[in-house]
């Protein structure tokens, strides 16, 4: 056997060590991205949950102008933190539709009275079925929908103040 072959196990060890160290040092990314980004919204139809506000169906998205689809719930604390940003987006002329996950009418009415109501439509998603069908794994999440009803982006977690200009720019670009 040639002498350099002796080093092969050692090299393999170094390689393994490098891979493991890299994996340990890299901060864990536990967000689950939706695989539906880039695809049209799946078909769904949800009843309304707040009196006087229409429910939400996938037909509402085609054809139209680019819009936001907010997945939220009255029992979700980050959704309260996100509310002022959604109001600011609405003020900027953005149409926001929503899916309320596992929610009740009284709880939702209280939430909207307290935190503002930026929504054009709210669908009642009591078994998270629409949430599951668009690949969302938590609340709040916000999907950017283009004029053809295609999902162009998924924002995971609450929308912060510095996310707003970016979202506005992307919606404008999708026109």
């Amino acid at each position: 056997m040639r002498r350099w072959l002796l080093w092969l196990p050692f090299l393999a060890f170094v390689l393994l060590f490098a891979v493991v160290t890299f994996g340990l040092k890299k901060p864990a990314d536990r967000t689950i991205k939706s695989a539906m980004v880039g695809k049209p919204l799946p078909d769904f139809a949800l009843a309304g949950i707040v009196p006087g506000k229409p429910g939400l169906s996938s037909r509402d998205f085609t054809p139209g102008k680019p819009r936001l689809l907010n997945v939220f719930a009255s029992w979700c604390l980050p959704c309260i933190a996100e509310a002022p940003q959604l109001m600011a987006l609405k003020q900027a002329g953005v149409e926001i539709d929503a899916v309320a996950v596992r929610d009740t009418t009284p709880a939702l009415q209280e939430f909207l009275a307290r935190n503002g109501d930026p929504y054009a439509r709210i669908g009642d998603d009591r078994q998270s079925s629409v949430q599951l069908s668009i690949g969302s794994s938590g609340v709040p999440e916000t999907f950017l929908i283009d004029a053809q009803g295609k999902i162009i982006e998924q924002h995971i977690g609450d929308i912060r103040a510095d996310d707003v200009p970016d979202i506005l720019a992307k919606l404008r670009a999708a026109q």
Partner: protein
Amino acid sequence: MKRTLLPLLLLLAAPALADSNLPPAALANTQLKDPALEAKARDLMYTLRCLVCQGQSIADSDAEMAGDMRALVRQRIAQGESPDSVRRWLVARYGDYVTYDPPFSWVTAPLWLAPLVMLGIGAWLARGSFKRKKR
């Protein structure tokens, strides 16, 4: 005084659970009437990842979302859909991450092929050492 009060107060403090007030979906914790279909659904549930607990299957998890996913699996299986098709539906939404039974692709190829390669190397090494013994 403080020492006795603190544990008591901690017992009183309600944990801030991020859960809704709605009861679980109808089929989340109820088996299907047809045992054959229920068996199919169960086998599938054990191979699907709970998205909010991440180390558990949806069959093992108490999370609300896992309950809703169990309901979804049971509904679709009860409607005659095959477990493979339900799995594909979820993979199309959440990626391969959602299944504990990863399909063969160039990303998972090392996972499936490494054992075979290792066995091959082992056999080669063993052959070498047996030869030496004969001498």
